[in-house]
């Protein structure tokens, strides 16, 4: 079945630094519904995230951003294309969108559980748990069961568990959702801190002002392909306002 494909070649401005993550021609087909209808979610995604980048993955709903992250993490298998990940599993941190964690654990217990999954030595684990609880502002709520956490608190504990292993590559799916302005400032400073420490961050977001503030490079996805990849400066240079730029790219 022929599908209309954009005739314009995607604009790609590659970075010179070594790549932490490189996707080439990534395709993902999913069979849904009773008749196992084939739905192409990713149709040839090309993306390069360099070491030390704070990379923003943008796109309208349904563009395939979350699916891309899932394929990178191995939660889904690619139908075609390659995923080059130079960072081992132990060095990756992930925050899913709309996170849900174990109700019956307290914030502290949950972070400890995450730390155990990385087989961190117990002293390291304990100091990280303490430190992270402080960094995300949840010291007082550390002993409270997660079922009593508000959405914002869940988001924050989610970021904490993504960082418990001091990862060199951090993948965040909509990290700012549900946060009040104070929370957002805290998360932004965390991401800033990661960048300063030379970590690589890749996050999806709809909040373009945050993206403009934090990211070094961005990619815009539409209908399963990347239509624009480059530095934030070039995007702003082209269009002054990131929102206008985004809308232009997405509308073709």
């Amino acid at each position, binding site marked *: 079945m022929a599908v209309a494909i954009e005739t314009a070649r995607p604009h790609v401005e590659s970075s010179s630094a070594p790549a932490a993550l490189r996707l080439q021609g990534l395709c993902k087909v999913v069979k849904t519904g009773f008749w196992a209808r084939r739905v192409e979610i990713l149709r040839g995604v090309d993306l390069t995230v360099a070491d030390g980048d704070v990379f923003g993955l943008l796109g309208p709903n349904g563009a395939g951003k979350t699916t891309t992250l899932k394929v990178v*993490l191995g939660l889904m298998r690619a139908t075609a294309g390659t995923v080059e990940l130079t960072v081992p599993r132990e060095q990756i941190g992930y925050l899913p969108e709309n996170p849900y964690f174990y109700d019956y654990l307290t914030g502290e217990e949950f972070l400890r559980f995450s730390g155990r999954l*990385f087989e961190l030595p117990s002293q390291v684990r304990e100091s990280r748990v303490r430190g992270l609880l402080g960094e995300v502002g949840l010291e007082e709520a550390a002993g409270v069961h997660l079922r009593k956490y508000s959405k914002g608190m869940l988001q924050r504990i989610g970021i904490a568990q993504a960082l418990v292993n001091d990862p060199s590559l951090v993948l965040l799916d909509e990290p700012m959702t549900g946060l009040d302005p104070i929370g957002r400032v805290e998360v932004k400073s965390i991401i800033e801190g990661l960048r300063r420490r030379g970590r690589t961050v890749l996050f999806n977001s709809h909040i373009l002002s945050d993206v403009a503030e934090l990211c070094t490079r961005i990619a815009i996805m539409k209908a399963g392909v990347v239509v624009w990849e480059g530095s934030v400066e070039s995007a702003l240079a082209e269009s002054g306002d990131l929102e206008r730029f985004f809308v232009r790219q997405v509308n073709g």
Partner: protein
Amino acid sequence: MSRVLTIALNTFKETIRDRILGVIVLFALAMIVGSVWLGAISLGQAGRMMQDFGLVAVTLFGLVVAVFVGASLVRKEIDKRTVFVLFSKPLGRSEFIVGKFLGLCATLFVVTMGMGVFLFVAVWYVAKSPQPDLLLACLLIYVQLVVVVAVTVLFSTVTSPTLASVLGVCVFIAGQLSSNVLSLTRLGHSPFVKAASWVVFVVVPNLSAVDIKAAVVGEQVSRPATLGLWVGYLAAYCVVVLLLASFVFRRKEF
């Protein structure tokens, strides 16, 4: 290995706090207490009645826990999307399955032996002398239920929790009738029946081989030597089932 234990401990915490467990155990204890009354109307057979019906209660309620919690173990994590966070970490799919299984086995142990100890004390009180065989019988019931959990977990990776529960119960019943299947292999009318019986006998776990209830109430003589072998067989059976479950689970996408 420690990751398996981490998952197991977490699963234990999760399942033991389940309020349904408390209700089920309460019912079991009520049934055991009720059997005291039954014993009183049995013309001097109080001990035997209590042991028999008490062990039935432990089996039944243990089965309910094994089957209903076992079927939803994996599904719950998928539905609540906690799997995303789990598998982004260096946790293998089989480590996850084995960990969940071990966690539920720990909870099941607490539940089964808890009821068993209660029954032991109750029978001691009524019959005026301790019957340690009761505890062994409960331990062996636990072994049977562990097999049921493994099978239920396997089914839950391929089908819905409800169907997995039902199939788990079916496997338990079939396992209790296993010795009859064996006699069919010898006495079957046609070679086809014999071959089919052999297949069923091999596939279905022989749970009746480790059931010593008849011996506990004095009806049969138990054979301790072969018991050990049969427990080993059931352990190997569990390993095979869990390997299958891991294999299926590895192919899954989230």
